[in-house]
């Protein structure tokens, strides 16, 4: 593996972030940046970019879109890994468009039978699209794979 690939680790707070941090605990990527909602867990990591929850106020979405542009052009990620949810959406599309970034999307293990909205939006551009339960495979198309799960 090429040394020190630039990796963006991106997830919303709660279970999404817990799962993402398990992945980082395993891989120990060195040249890394984090994006999540503001929470004590993410603020202990560096470098990190945080935003306010997007569902609550539409103005937060606009602010986050602007911030996403800044993050993508500053960090120029080569690889993005996300376990959802909506935090990843703008960064994934911008990175793919401008830097041909490789994207790994792993549907959170709380999604057992039902697709998530973020999963549906990321499906077309993810280079690797994984679900954590076999029962979800038939809901997505052949692009989705099951290769184990964090639980």
């Amino acid at each position, binding site marked *: *593996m*090429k040394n020190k*690939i630039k990796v963006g680790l991106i997830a919303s707070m*709660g*279970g999404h972030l*817990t*799962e993402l941090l*398990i*992945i980082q605990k*395993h*891989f120990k990527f060195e040249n890394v940046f984090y994006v999540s909602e503001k929470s004590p*867990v993410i603020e202990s990591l560096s470098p990190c970019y945080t935003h306010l929850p997007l569902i609550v106020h539409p103005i937060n979405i606009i602010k986050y879109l602007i911030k996403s542009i800044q993050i993508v052009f500053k960090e120029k990620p*080569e*690889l993005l890994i996300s376990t959802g949810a909506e935090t990843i959406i703008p960064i994934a599309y911008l990175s793919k468009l401008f830097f041909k970034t*490789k994207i*790994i999307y*792993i549907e*959170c*293990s*709380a*999604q*057992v*039978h039902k697709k998530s909205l973020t999963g549906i939006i990321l499906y077309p551009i993810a*280079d*690797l699209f*994984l679900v*954590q*339960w076999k*029962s979800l495979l038939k809901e997505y198309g052949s692009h989705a794979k099951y*290769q*184990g*799960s*964090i*639980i």
Partner: protein
Amino acid sequence: MIFVILGNSQLSFIRLIQLVELCKIFQGKTIIYQFGSTPFDPVKYPNSFDYVNRNKYETIFKQSELVISHAGVGTIIDAGEYQKPLVIVPRRKKENEHHNDHQTQICHELIQNARPGIFPILDESIFEQTVSNALNFNKNDNDSYNLHRRKLMDYLSTQIQLWF
């Protein structure tokens, strides 16, 4: 010591407290609750709390002989990390314990694709028997923990090496 984690989905989970308190097997054992969003009487439960910081949580988790919990993803992952036997009881939508039934779905999946050390309960009548099985779980069988996680990490690793 038994650690009982009720979870924090803004809704109460009194059913799990009742199940634990009816269990004769716990007589003489210390039970610590993390009540989360479930209201409780601090006089009746002096060792328990609503939340604690991550360090204290981790210490209690590691010191416990058994953890009993709602079927939240975070707790199930923690049990794998700390290699503790875990009994999980799903919060149900119809009991107004959660907004949806994903915890029940996770339990169904974990029954079909069993994880060593994880004991899902869909039928409350087997609670005490399951707790007894979990207490007798062979904790030395560490290799069997996190089998599915290792599979996923190996696959990711291979894929990333192909790209870079």
